């Protein structure tokens, strides 16, 4: 049982390049989340999904897009990477929302030069 798997683990991009981060969960969870974690800022929610085919904006959605075409996958896209998007990105999932713990992947470390 792998839990939440994030791909890739590390990536270096040049400003203006695009890329997609993949999150996969094998727990049949309905809810999935993308966070970024920066020093001194804590975890901030980028986008989330409450089920297959749904997405919603979080606290810091600008510059990112997401898709949830399959229940087990949640993709985070950067269309034109900027140095301000250098961060560690975490994906999480939960069975439902009320009173449920979130299960996190081990993150993708992204540097934008």
């Amino acid at each position, binding site marked *: 049982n792998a839990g939440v798997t994030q791909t890739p683990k590390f990536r270096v991009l040049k400003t203006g390049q695009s890329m997609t981060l993949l999150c996969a969960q094998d727990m049949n969870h309905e809810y999935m989340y993308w966070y970024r974690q920066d020093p001194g800022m*804590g*975890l901030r929610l980028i986008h*989330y999904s409450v089920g297959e085919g749904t997405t919603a904006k979080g606290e810091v959605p600008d510059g990112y897009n997401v898709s949830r075409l399959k229940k087990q996958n949640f993709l985070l896209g950067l269309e034109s990477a900027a140095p301000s998007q250098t961060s560690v990105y975490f994906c999480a999932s939960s069975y439902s*929302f009320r*009173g449920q*713990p979130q299960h996190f992947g*081990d993150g993708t470390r992204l540097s934008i030069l």
Partner: protein
Amino acid sequence: SQKIEQNSEALNIQEGKTATLTCNYTNYSPAYLQWYRQDPGRGPVFLLLIRENEKEKRKERLKVTFDTTLKQSLFHITASQPADSATYLCALDEGRDDKIIFGKGTRLHILP
């Protein structure tokens, strides 16, 4: 404005003692409060959840209290061990939307 505050400075505790971490919040009315552990280079791992109508929750050496009047949760690790060294995050769920809000975390060092 809404705030979640955890000890910004690292907490150093001698092995075997009880470590107590604080989570204070303002302008929130959480229905649930969660605590997570995060090790360097890893994602957060869920530890405990406490509901607004619960005063205390225990799991092995861990204890969480929740005081909605003081707007504070305390997280205790008894008989602390060096393996307990990590960053601990609190997270609030107001129960009104589909999001929880995380504090910035407190780094805990258990000294052998």
